[in-house]
């Protein structure tokens, strides 16, 4: 009896103890239950409140006390946010985890829209100051774009490639190329030229535009396939199907399918990467513009 009571008490005790949260699979967006989201919202609300409750003459701008304050906070935040690039290269440094750092980077970065824009007092023009603001907005929006891609693309990326690795995708295409090369050996010059088109004028990835649009209609393989299909169809109508051409058609079709998979992969990877090609270089340009902005403002005080 006594032991039963003890057991039930022990069970009660177990039930009351909260299981440790599984933070290993928690993304940076939910890090610490959105601690940095709260900090960022608080900062934005306070900044907006101060902006609305003060009425400087002739207008809000970077030169009022609030403007200087918001500008100092904003400049500090920009420098700190850009240091994520340094922090992520120092693996395992303390005291804050890279996930926590990233979470703060994202949320504080978003609050910079409010802080930075209120700092301008909506006084924009063609000058170094507005350039700094515009670059800042480009950086933030590209970051936002990147996060939205990270939320949706990896799943699709994984679904597209199944269990296949990138190298295996390339290997599959190369194998098909070899098969095409062998299968084309007995062909005459015209048909051989078509296969060479597929072998030599086929670019798996191509230009940035092709990577993003996924439009490879003018690629060598697609053109070769289209012509071969036509020839094979003609042959079928006349009842004289060239088996060698039919074999080529089959191989070209398989190559086109393999290319399509690789290109879907490339397209998503391009999207995942492209925002960083905006985010990072524009951040550096922003730091330069910020320096020019601060120096010029105080030089021509």
């Amino acid at each position: 009896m006594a032991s039963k009571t003890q057991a039930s008490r022990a069970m009660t005790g177990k039930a009351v103890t909260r299981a440790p949260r599984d933070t290993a699979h928690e993304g940076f967006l939910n890090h610490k239950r959105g601690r940095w989201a709260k900090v960022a919202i608080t900062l934005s609300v306070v900044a907006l409140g101060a902006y609305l409750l003060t009425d400087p003459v002739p207008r809000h701008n970077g030169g009022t006390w609030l403007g200087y304050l918001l500008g100092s906070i904003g400049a500090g935040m920009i420098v700190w946010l850009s240091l994520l690039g340094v922090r992520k290269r120092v693996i395992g440094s303390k005291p804050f985890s890279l996930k926590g750092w990233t979470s703060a980077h994202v949320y504080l970065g978003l609050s910079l829209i409010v802080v930075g824009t209120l700092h301008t007092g909506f006084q924009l023009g063609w000058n170094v100051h507005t350039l700094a603001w515009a670059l800042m907005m480009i950086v933030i929006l590209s970051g936002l774009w990147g996060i939205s891609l990270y939320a949706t693309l990896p799943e699709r990326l994984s679904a597209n490639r199944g269990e296949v690795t990138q190298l295996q995708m390339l290997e599959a295409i190369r194998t098909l190329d070899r098969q095409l090369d062998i299968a084309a050996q007995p062909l005459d010059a015209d048909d051989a030229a078509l296969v060479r088109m597929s072998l030599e004028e086929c670019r798996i990835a191509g230009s940035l535009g092709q990577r993003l649009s996924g439009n490879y209609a003018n690629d060598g393989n697609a053109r070769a396939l289209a012509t071969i299909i036509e020839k094979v169809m003609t042959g079928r109508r006349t009842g004289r199907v060239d088996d060698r051409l039919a074999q080529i058609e089959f191989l070209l079709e398989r190559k086109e399918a393999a290319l399509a998979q690789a290109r879907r992969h490339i397209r998503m990877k391009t999207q995942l990467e492209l925002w960083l090609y905006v985010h990072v270089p524009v951040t550096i340009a922003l730091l330069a513009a910020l320096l020019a902005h601060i120096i010029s403002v105080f030089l021509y005080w």
Partner: protein
Amino acid sequence: MSFIVRQVAKRADGGDIIRTRTLVQAELTVGRGTDCDIQLADLAVMLRHARLVQITAGKVSVETTGGVPVEVGGKFVTRADLAVAENPTIDIGPFRLSLSPGEDGAVAITAERVVPPIEAADAAHETSIFSLSGAMPTKRRMAWVGGLAVLVLLLLVPLFHFIGEGEPALPQTMVAEAARPVTPGQGFGDGKLSVPTARPAAAGGFAPDESWSSGMLSDAHASLSNNCSACHQKAFVSVTDGACQACHTASALPDHAAPARMAKGRLPDGGVMGAAHSAFNLPQGRCTSCHKEHEGAATVMTVAESFCTDCHGGLKSRLADTAVANVPGWAKHPDFRATLVSSPSADKPVFTRAALSGAREKSGLIYPHDIHQSTTNAVANMAQKQRLPQGADGALPCSYCHKADSDQVRFKPIDMEANCGACHDLAFARDGGTVRTLPHGKPAQVAGIIRDFTLSESFAPRAGVQRLSFDRHLPGKAPPPLPGGNPAARAQAAVVSVFTGKGLCTECHVVTDTGAADLTRRFAIAPVSINDHYLPQGQFPHGKHKSYDAKTGQAACVACHTGVTKSKVSTDVNIPGVANCRECHGAPAKTLLSTTAKAGASCDTCHGFHDGVAPTGALPAGHVQPARVAGRQAAGRSRQTPA
């Protein structure tokens, strides 16, 4: 006649596989086809590409058979004879056939792939295919280019421009414009002084440091747009007053008060703000403390009300001897204290400031506003007969006498001949076709004219000469005959009746009989000083108040000057109080969701800052305000003193 064919193939590990065959025949076929003697497996090679024929010992001819040329010694040919001893080469597609003399007179041919096969997909290219590095310059390079472009174009180029710039040249027209003293009434009333609305282009084109401008310059300063160092003279030093005063000279924009008194009266700059100001060397009271440039076309003149009330809200506690009342803000603006004529004088009238309630003014003039504003009385009758202008209600309009000055701010001085003369024509006799009149403002002349006229009538009366009655109440009535006696007594009686009788001088003036023996000096007219500015510390542009409370014209005037239609004496002061202004200024507009005031209520709506030093203590006789160094004074507090 034989060939030794050595075909070289690459192994996966990089090594060569060499297969050697000896073909005893005089002719070799070369091509992709499996039936060829030398099979070259590449699609760039024709099925039957060429034929090699051993013509003689040591001599081989090559001839294409597929229509596609071969390359021999760097030239594309369809046929060539080759000397084997010279070790010739034949390039067919990616393959090279090297000929050399073999054993026993045979021709050795080595067939080798010299152009590696196309690898459509290569593991080494994985990164360039699957990452953007294959399609774009690296992030690092883009960062360097962008960052350096910004630093060079927007920091270094403007910086070198600033360093290399000499003394700034100021546009002469601007300097002249700025040095002109500010005239009063320069368009007060909307919280902004009138500044040039034309936007002169800056001469000399774009300057690199314009990219540092934080916003558009005001219209007045637009021609300095590419001349930053005109104001920003020293690096890292906030624009100094000296830079402003290079154009805005002290005589054009005098001090608000003596600098020492300004310093004493100013609210001390304390706390975080004070610390920040002192840390960054931004003392109070600089031009730029109030005037903010780079804020758009018309905002450089806009200053906050708080800039005034910071000092004037509690001025008395810091500057005990000031004559200026504390003004914490428009809502608590003390009622006006009008500047009134307390002692009229032909040349030195005395003015006194007094509270509006119960204020009386001694202009020296007898003028009841009420009878001149009637729609029915003899004045109205007379005005109609004279075809004088009529107000909407039929009465003589205010504007008949009170004519706006050129600025539409105040009014032209009252002029007896222009404003009163139509009715008060000072006619005393009809002389044939001529109506004889008396000169206004010259009592000695008047006495002389009446005396001489009366004497001449006594000694040599002329036909067609008729004295006129001055009493306007009974038109057409003949004047009472002069008392009898000798001509001198009659002349004296006539003069006395002009100065003391009804209908002429005494209508408007206080006349004193001094009893002097000299008839032309006997009657003295009390001096008259008509006030032309009751509230000289401020500006009230009448032109901007032509309609009030949906009234216009005469009705608008009396909407504020309410007592004027009932005013029986000229000692009444019909100046509206501050409460009257507040009905519009600072009052919320009557629209839903709008808190915008109907009319501006900032200090500079009425007051100027750069008006010179305000007088302290009692106003001196003559009210000429000697302490005011410029500005308003020049605008002529010209007193008119009709005699």
